[in-house]
């Protein structure tokens, strides 16, 4: 099963490397959002410093939604889900493989966004370990939620507007927890940052269990 998961993740990442959508389009777009936030807040340095954690996760949310849409577009455009159903690949491997490739792409997005936020919003990291753990937890939660809700909207004519409507309410707790954890890691708030990071892992675990149980059902209908 691990070999199947890695094979599927590699397939998605190879397509991504050739198309260069994540790093070529989505990452610059999220960077632009970080800059536009500064314009919207009138480049108010203290305000940007306080809101840095939240603004970072809003940018990740936006970029993650685009990457999720892209992850399913490449499958539905070529009718690949029919091929998957006929192939001996297990449904669980498909769910985990797509989640892994999305996780790696979101991590890449975070690697671009983190230094940008630190530099542009002039914030200092006081707890690097918490920052990395919260970033990883957020990426796991975003990827499993994205794959579960992405397959729900896949193949439908209005999926581009439906997916954010379905996904954002589910990801709202991740956004909240990520913002609080980052605020602690950036020394903005003396709060239980590790509890918030753990909450993100719990959300990811719940969605992984639900995703493994429901993915087969949803894939049958594509």
């Amino acid at each position: 099963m691990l070999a199947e998961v890695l094979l599927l993740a590699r397939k998605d990442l190879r397509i991504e490397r050739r198309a260069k959508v994540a790093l070529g389009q989505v990452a610059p777009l999220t960077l632009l959002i970080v800059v536009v936030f500064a314009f919207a807040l009138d480049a108010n340095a203290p305000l940007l410093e306080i809101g840095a954690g939240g603004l970072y996760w809003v940018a990740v949310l936006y970029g993650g939604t685009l990457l999720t849409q892209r992850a399913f577009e490449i499958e539905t455009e070529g009718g690949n889900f029919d091929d998957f159903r006929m192939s001996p690949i297990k449904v669980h491997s498909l769910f985990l493989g797509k989640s892994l490739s999305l996780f790696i792409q979101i991590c890449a997005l975070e690697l671009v966004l983190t230094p940008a936020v630190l530099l542009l919003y002039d914030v200092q990291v006081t707890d690097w370990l918490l920052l990395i753990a919260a970033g990883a937890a957020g990426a796991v939660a975003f990827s499993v939620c994205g794959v579960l809700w992405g397959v729900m909207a896949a193949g439908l004519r209005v999926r581009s507007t439906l997916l954010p409507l379905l996904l954002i309410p589910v990801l709202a707790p991740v956004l909240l927890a990520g913002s609080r954890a980052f605020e602690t890691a950036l020394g903005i708030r003396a709060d239980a940052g590790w509890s918030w990071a753990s909450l993100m892992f719990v959300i990811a675990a719940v969605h992984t269990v639900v995703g493994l149980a429901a993915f087969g059902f949803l894939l049958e209908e594509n």
Partner: protein
Amino acid sequence: MPESMDDSKMTATPLTRVLGILGIVAGVLMAVLGLFISPPDVVQGEAVRMLYLHVPSIWIAYGSFVLTSISSLLFLVRSRRREDGGRHYDRIAGSAAEVGVVFTGLTLITGMLWGKVTWGTYWQWDARLTTTVLLFVTYLGYLALRRLPADPIVRGRRAAVMALISFINVPIVHYSVDWWRTLHQKASLSVGRRPEITGEMYWTLLYSALTVTIVGAWLIVHRYRVIRLEEIRDEENLKMLISSRRHERPTGSAADGEVS
């Protein structure tokens, strides 16, 4: 309504008429009890009267979402076994979710009005309020999924999975006041806990819950029948289109025949 439609295709039945009349009478009595007979609260004053609509509304919303989840589960199980794909359960799920969304919206509106009087603000980013608005938006997404143009069974199955996942929010909303420190007060009535209110206020709240349940049931039954009517209309339209297509004169081949 076309003459061909018999009584089974109407939205009203003796049961719904009785429920409807009962709902109106019970609603009038609820207004009298809530506005005139029940006393003002020592702390909240007259604002407490808003709770006779606010609290039962969220109970009915929870109940509707429970019904949506059970029906969705049954639909997922039956849709593989039955010829009609168990669409009966899909219709119940959709009707109950719509009513649940309406009552969640009503809870938010009445809560905001109560908050303005009691807290001095319409909105607070409090755990109960925030989770309730997320519940509302999640089920709006569910309703949006149900309205998409797709095969009814495919759409129904996706919606059923979404309904089951979305239900996770219901206990989170309910227990948010216990799990987090919130501005919102704890539940007025709760199983295994002494009620926070007593006397006329307690009975008025229970009576309001009964009234809102009757209205909610009436709405669900009607909505179910309207969904069924919409399906019949679509099926009849399709039959008419196929029939008119069959009766079209094959102009191309006739012209060819005349020439030859």
